[in-house]
């Protein structure tokens, strides 16, 4: 193992802000994309099935 301690790992040789700033924002964006994707998927499905029901109701009478 390359690191002696957790704090050394976090410090990244004094450049922690840059390294973790990169990974934090990068992985954060990926998480955000996944969350948005899931939310869009849900809301889209809800909208589609509501529309479908509306159209069925119209066809019936």
């Amino acid at each position, binding site marked *: 193992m*390359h690191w002696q301690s957790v704090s050394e790992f976090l410090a990244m040789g004094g*450049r922690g802000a840059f390294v973790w*700033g990169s990974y934090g924002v*990068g992985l954060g*964006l*990926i998480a955000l*994309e996944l969350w948005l994707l899931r939310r869009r*998927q849900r809301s*889209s499905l809800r909208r589609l099935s509501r529309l*479908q029901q509306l159209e069925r109701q119209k066809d019936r009478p």
Partner: protein
Amino acid sequence: MNFFRFSSPQTFYPLAGRLVPLFAALAAACAVAGLYIGFFVAPSDAVQGEVYRIIHLHVAAAWMSMFIYLVMAFWSAVGLGLGTRLSFYMTQALAPTGAMFCFIALWTGALWGRPTWGAYWVWDARLTSQLLLLFLYFGFIALTRAIDDPRRADKAGAIIALVGAVNVPIIYFSVTWWNTLHQGASVKPGGSSMASVMLWAMLLCALAAWFYSLAVSLARARRIILERERHTEWAAAEIARRGAGGRAD
């Protein structure tokens, strides 16, 4: 094998549904392995110290951002040439992910540049062309969102993706030339030869990004397909099935 069979949304939809979890799992595995090697196995760099570890995310994102634009251009050409709707759906499903990777490449590059070059931003040719690529992505997304009629959005997006793709190499070469014309060899990314562990970590991360893009774009394409094909019988049945359960798998 019949190419056109899979170009029909109806056959593509369930196939994509089966592929999404597979690619997602592969992406996660590659990412974990790559980051582990990158952070715990690879030694620190002789010149840059620890900060070089940004490279794994940076290069993976930079490669993906360029590759995705090419794929979008490819699907656009197919769509305009053969009139397959699915190609347009794929183009639109890819764009947000490409833009995101493009932004990540810029962001990580900027954060890397500060400790190594002493500035967040220099007007280097590669950096600049990456910035312009981000604008091309934004343009594509803004254009397709601004058009309400989906069929017009499809084709307009395809036209701008192709025009942009023709211009990407032109932009790249012109800014390279512009830059070297003025100030000779400026600071260039890379340069130090890489240890093979680092290379492994980098490749694994790039692979992770690749599988991630596949999974996300297929999932997005599935949603687009349902929205756009909802008047067809199979899609209506699918909506009824999933809508009734209230589950979005």
